[in-house]
Structure formats: C-alpha cells, structure tokens
C-alpha cells in the first residue's frame, strides 16, 4: 500500500487530494500507467507527464525512479512558489 497525493490541477482533474493505492508497480512510470488505466479522469491528468512532477517521500524524483520502500508518492504540476 502506498499513499498517492495530488496537488493543484492534478488534484482538480482527478477529483481528490490523496488516496491509498494497492500496487505492485516497480517504478513511478508503472504506477502512472496503472492509474491511467483506471478511469478517464486519471488518464486525463497523466496524459502529458512532461508537464508533471513527482516526489517520492517528499523528495523530487524522476518518473523512472523505483518505488521499492516508498510510502508516499505525490504528483503535481511544475511549482510556482516565491
């Protein structure tokens, strides 16, 4: 089980801020493929991963990163702080 968090328009498109997901996905990209296959709203949110960022346990990561040992995955658009 893994906690998956969504922020900004990713959250709005998927329609929830977080959920617990049962997955055997080996990498972030595998998890994205699993989620996209669920429902259109996930497919829409993940349509262009080049415009998305991912954090694993609150550290920025790549979509090719392995999920082994990770408890929290977050998907969000490029950040606009400051």
């Amino acid at each position, binding site marked *: 089980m893994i906690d998956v*968090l969504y922020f900004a328009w990713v959250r709005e498109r998927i329609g929830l801020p977080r959920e617990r997901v049962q997955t055997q996905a080996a990498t972030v990209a595998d998890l994205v493929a699993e989620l996209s296959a669920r429902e259109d709203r996930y497919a829409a949110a993940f349509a262009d991963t080049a415009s998305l960022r991912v954090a694993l346990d*609150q550290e920025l990561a790549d979509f090719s990163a392995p999920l082994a040992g990770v408890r929290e995955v977050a998907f969000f658009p490029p950040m606009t702080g400051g």
Partner: protein
Amino acid sequence: MPVRVQADPFDLGAETAAFAGAAGGAGAVVTFTGLVRDLPGTPLSVMEIEHYPGMTERAITAMVAEATARWSLTAVLVIHRHGRLTPGEAIMMVATAAAHRAEAFAAAEFLMDYLKSRAPFWKKEVTGQAGAWVAAKDSDESALKRW
C-alpha cells in the same frame, strides 16, 4: 526558526527590522518580498496558494542549508504564506545577512530562484468565479542553471 510556512499574514516591516536587529556582525542585509500585484483598472482577483505540507518545510530547509554552505551568512529567514491572499498582500519574504553585500545578494537570489521552481507551492489566480493556475515560466527553470 529561519523557515516559516504559514497561512497567516506576516508584518514585513517588523520582520525586516527584527532580522536586521539580530544580524549581529553583518554589514549587509538583503530582503526580497513577493507581493500579490495590485494593478489599478484590473478586476480585483485573489490569489490562492496551495502547498504540500511537510515537503514544503523540508524543501525550503534544504535550500537554506545549501545557501548557508555556499556563502558566509550570519542569518537567513524565509517566510512563505499559503491559502487565500488579496492584492497588495505579501506572499513571501527572504532575508539574508552577511559581512559583504555580494554574498547577501547572491544568497537571496539563489533562494528566490530555488523557491520559485523547487518549493512545492502552486498559485491560482481567482477572478470572480473563475480560477486559473499560474503557469511555471521557462525563465524560472533556466534561472536555476546559473547556480
């Protein structure tokens, strides 16, 4: 605590005065303040700032540690708000203190460049019923390359 992420407004004047007052051996203090723009003639819009509690503090603390390692700073402060802000309000501030101005300026610009693109905040401009997420700028991403 040099990193504060909060919904409440902060008092820019009081924070600046307190920071400079506590800067001790510093000869140079630089502050940057980001404001919600208040343009006459444009419809009043509020800014909603979403963030990632936990990661935000962690990311900013790492940036402050990196700045402190790169430059001889006597003090650093980062305050960043989230939630609903109105035009003219301060979104965030960075303050740096150093013996020499070049270091204080460089560290403040470094922190701003990283806050813009690496701290998990997302801004939405809401005018009336409609809201639009602020898009990240390529220039902000490329600004990181200079460090």
